[in-house]
């Protein structure tokens, strides 16, 4: 029986199979914006400590999946379970009944997200950005929150920027602060939404290396949307190829990237890898 720590240290792909309660579970998920159906009949599970990368052309619904988990979008059909508990709706007598706001918030505090556009609060200093939620959401003491913030800033290579304002930082630095801010909440699940897409090419590796280190040293479950295939290959246990709101193919990164079964996957990969 796998323990929670199994996945972190293990080789990618090892944790995918038989965890008892999936940390994220999508059941018959459907998402539409008006008449536009983005996701339909989507079913998948993510085990504790597993790192899953979603790849596929833009508009295939990858980002929408992350946003549904973060409750940034309204789920229009089906169910999402976090640690086995319903995130937005539960099933009662075959009907979808919304869960209470309180319950949803309780589950949501286990989930962190890093955005493409960083979304740091410009009216706060770097330190204030990081300690706001640990103090006021998790109820930690200010002293502990500050100590943790400083160690996280150390970890992301910005120990001297605690009192700076985000506007004085470069994009890469802002994104590293955003990673520290998300990690300060000790999330069980970390959602990474194209975190390097808005960055200059020369700083992309700095950010990815920090995330590689997070993947190596913690047991956080990651759901990743990225166009950095090298990074996806390094950190993921599983890669899911999306197109048109469906999973075209899924498997360990070695298989998907070197020997995909589906023609659609092959085409997509040759387009993004440029050969």
């Amino acid at each position, binding site marked *: 029986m796998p323990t929670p720590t199994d996945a972190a240290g293990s080789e990618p792909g090892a944790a995918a199979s038989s965890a008892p309660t999936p940390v994220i579970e999508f059941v018959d998920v459907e998402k539409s914006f008006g008449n536009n159906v983005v996701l339909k009949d989507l079913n998948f599970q993510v085990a504790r400590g597993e790192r899953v990368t979603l790849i596929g052309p833009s508009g295939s619904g990858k980002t929408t999946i992350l946003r549904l988990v973060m409750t940034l979008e309204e789920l229009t059909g089906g169910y999402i379970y976090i640690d086995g508990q319903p995130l937005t709706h539960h099933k009662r007598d075959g009907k979808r009944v919304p869960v209470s706001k309180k319950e949803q918030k309780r589950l949501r505090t286990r989930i962190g997200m890093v*955005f493409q556009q960083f*979304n740091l*609060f410009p009216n706060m200093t770097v330190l204030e950005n990081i300690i*706001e939620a640990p103090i006021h959401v998790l109820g930690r003491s200010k002293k502990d929150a500050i100590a943790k913030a400083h160690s996280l800033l150390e970890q992301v290579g910005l120990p001297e920027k605690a009192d700076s304002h985000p506007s*004085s930082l470069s994009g890469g630095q802002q994104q590293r602060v955003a990673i520290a801010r998300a990690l300060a909440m000790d999330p069980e699940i970390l959602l990474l939404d194209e975190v390097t897409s808005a960055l200059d090419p020369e700083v992309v590796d700095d950010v990815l290396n920090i995330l590689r280190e997070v993947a190596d040293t913690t047991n956080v479950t990651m759901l990743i949307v990225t166009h950095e295939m090298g990074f996806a290959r390094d950190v993921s246990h599983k890669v899911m190829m999306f197109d048109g709101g469906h999973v075209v193919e899924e498997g360990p990164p070695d298989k998907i990237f070197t020997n995909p079964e589906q023609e659609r996957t092959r085409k997509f990969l040759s387009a993004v890898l440029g050969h």
Partner: protein
Amino acid sequence: MILNLTQAAEIDDPSMVDEEEVRRSPFWDWDFAFDAFPDIFMAFLEVTLLVTVIGSLLAAVLGLVIAILIMVLPKPLAWLVRWVANFIRMTPIVVQLIFVFWAFVWMDALTIGIIVFGVHYATYMSEVYRAGIESVPRGQWEATTALSMSAGRTWRKVVIPQALRSTVPSLGNYAISMFKDTPFLLVIGVAEMVTVAGERGAPVFRTTEVYTIAGLLFLAASYPTAVLINRLEKRLAYAH
């Protein structure tokens, strides 16, 4: 009407005012100006400035409350608040002053003036706040959700501070507008600065001095306020 005729008759009485002297007097009489100044200045402090300062604060707070209510209340209630605010904004302040004065006849006229000015301008300021709130990028709201921040802290620590940055100049301009609207208090019998100036000048047929003093006092208050708003705007801008 009758009262006016009586006043006119009194003034026409040669024993009250020496018409000849009035006609011959210089355009500007320093003695009269110095004589009238204290009364006008006191009215400025005790009424005009008081109504503007308290009225602006009331408008700034109430305007923000209205803007937030319209955004957070359930649809029918939000619609009601919006409709009432539109109604107040689309009707003249003079009508509102007279209406409230007679509807709440037991209340002190000065208090009524402050409330009516505050509420009237709150409806304008609420639109400024609304625009400011809408200018806060969606990503900021999403970050507060991702951090599970409470609605209260989201508004107080993230949305309002960022919204205010762009609203300060417009709010300040409305405060200055309110200041310049204070002579309307005349219609509910509040002796604000311009009324007092008129009362000092009319009996002696001298208007230049009193209205010049009133005008300069308006300028003396408006200009520093505009400078102050400018400073505040710069201070609220983020460090670059």
